[in-house]
């Protein structure tokens, strides 16, 4: 009896899975549990926690100051995602329709920025956008095209620009993968059945690229919502996102429980957003 159980396929599957499961448990689940537990504790004076159970941290999250930042962060993340999609889709389409050799070169080009540290690249943007000494404003003013420097820095525009710049490649890659998989004869079949170029796109290309669009949107939205380097540098210390507040709780304010509570709320919101997004996307992607 026991022998048979040991030989059953499901037991073997679990056995094979166990190293990966153990890894996930320790390195993925455990930190999450720590965050969750800390969010219900009181802060210690010099960082750390005091083991007293409380809902106080969550009550503070609902404070309008933090809620406002959360809404603004969501707006910035959505804008970043939409703009990345708007610029990234045509780019992915362009790459996917090149010859094989050119495709690989273009993909490589897309990855090159990642070879430099994100922090450094964000500082590079700082030198371009800065109000009085930035490359853009200095050039435009010396050409006499503008008298006053343009407000390119220290605002949502700068943050969104920096985030789109940073995350658009991860939007392009999954869309490229989806587009590249589309059999070209499907496009010909649609044209053969009287579909104009526009309708070939809306009826065939777009629906078949939705899995890539969904994956890309998630890959951009999630890090954009939690971003803290970009708003810290390009927001000029004035325009903050929820990521900055969280990092401040840990690094400056030494309020680990409140930082944990903010993280937990954000995680739940992201989970909900992801679920809703996937549901809608899957519904649009299946035949009537």
């Amino acid at each position: 009896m026991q022998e048979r159980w040991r030989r059953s396929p499901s037991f073997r599957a679990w056995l094979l899975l166990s190293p990966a499961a153990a890894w996930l448990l320790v390195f993925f689940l455990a930190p999450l549990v720590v965050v969750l537990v800390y969010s219900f504790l009181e802060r210690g004076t010099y960082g750390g926690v005091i083991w007293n159970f409380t809902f106080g941290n969550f009550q503070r999250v609902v404070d309008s100051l933090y809620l406002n930042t959360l809404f603004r962060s969501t707006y910035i993340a959505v804008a970043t995602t939409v703009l990345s999609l708007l610029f990234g889709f045509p780019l992915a389409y362009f790459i996917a329709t090149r010859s094989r050799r050119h495709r690989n070169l273009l993909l490589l080009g897309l990855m090159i920025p990642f070879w430099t540290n994100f922090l450094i690249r964000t500082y590079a943007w700082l030198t371009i956008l800065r109000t009085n000494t930035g490359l853009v404003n200095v050039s435009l003013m010396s050409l006499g095209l503008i008298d006053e420097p343009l407000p390119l820095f220290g605002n949502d525009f700068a943050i969104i620009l920096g985030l789109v710049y940073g995350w658009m490649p991860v939007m392009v890659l999954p869309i490229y993968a989806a587009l590249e998989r589309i059999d070209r004869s499907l496009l010909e079949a649609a044209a053969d059945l009287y579909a104009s170029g526009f309708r070939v796109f809306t009826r065939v290309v777009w629906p078949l690229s939705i899995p890539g669009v969904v994956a890309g949107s998630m890959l951009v939205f999630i890090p954009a919502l939690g971003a803290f380097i970009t708003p810290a540098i390009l927001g000029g210390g004035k325009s903050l996102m929820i990521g900055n507040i969280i990092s401040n709780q840990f690094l400056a304010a030494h309020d680990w429980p409140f930082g944990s509570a903010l993280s937990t709320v954000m995680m739940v919101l992201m989970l909900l957003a992801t679920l809703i997004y996937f549901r809608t996307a899957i519904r649009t992607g299946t035949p009537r």
Partner: protein
Amino acid sequence: MSDGFAVELQEVVKRFGDVTAVDHISLQIRDGEFFSLLGPSGCGKTTTLRLIAGFEMPTSGQILIGGELQGYRPAFQRPVNTVFQHYALFPHMSVYDNVAFGLEMRGVPDKETKSRVHEALELVQLPGMVHRRPDQLSGGQQQRVALARALVNQPKVLLLDEPLGALDLKLRKAMQIELKALQHRVGITFIYVTHDQEEALTMSDRIAVIRRGRVLQMGAPEGIYEHPANRFVADFIGETKFIPGRVAALGPPVEVALDGGASVLCGWAEEGTTVGAEVTVSIRPERIGLQGVDDGGTGAELARLAGTITQAMYLGTDTRYVIEAAGGATLAVRMQNVGDGVQRHAVGDAVAVMWDPQHARVLID
């Protein structure tokens, strides 16, 4: 329609860089005809079809559909529909939406679309599957959906690009018969691309044999099979035996001297044959007769070659002999197993092979 031609190609050329895929092809395909473009892979037959569909534009030359000059008209404005080699069904749409696609694009009202889609699916014998997705269908069923999706639009011309290539042999045979019957019923001109000579012979009203972008021979299946115009056609279509020789006298009948000293008579010679030219005598195995040397047959009007049987294969309905003939030629002969069905010859037997000179053709190498 002018002149009753469904599709006309005039000196069409298509080059891809240095490669000439279609090299001055001219075709006149009649209304309601089942016309096959037959040739080995890479011969330009599919490119020719794609030029008609509008997926490729000709480098030079003209294409007329229903008497109308197509010029650079894009695919979606041409009155033709295509059945693709791998069906190219839209994977994200149901069978119904696939078949309805063309009607929807042309703004046909929903009610009419519905009845026409169901009619089309009935025509290809696939009713009651409207809600399935393509990946839930077998290869044969996908094939039928692809056909319905094209036919529902009632095009002037249906273009088929090796539509049976992905099916197994048995299904392919059944679909050949069905396609032919379907074509007869709907009365639409079919232009059918295939590399399978048997398929082309079975189904077509006319065949164009294509090689290296050129039409080598065009005509009804019987004509192409019985009277191949050159060595490639003779070799590509059906089984043919070739005997090398040298022209001794231009008849008719043409006399060809074989290497071993024997000579044979042939009823037809390719244009340009001259006395003394190195040529090939081609003959279909089923046209070759076999006689034991002791049988004493005369038949002065027949061409005769002495030989020895080197192989005998019993194939059920007939027996296939391989004969080493005088002059070093190897011939295959099929003898039907009629009557008592006993094998009449054995390996090693000395025999005479013979044929009516009118079935032997002299082809230039």
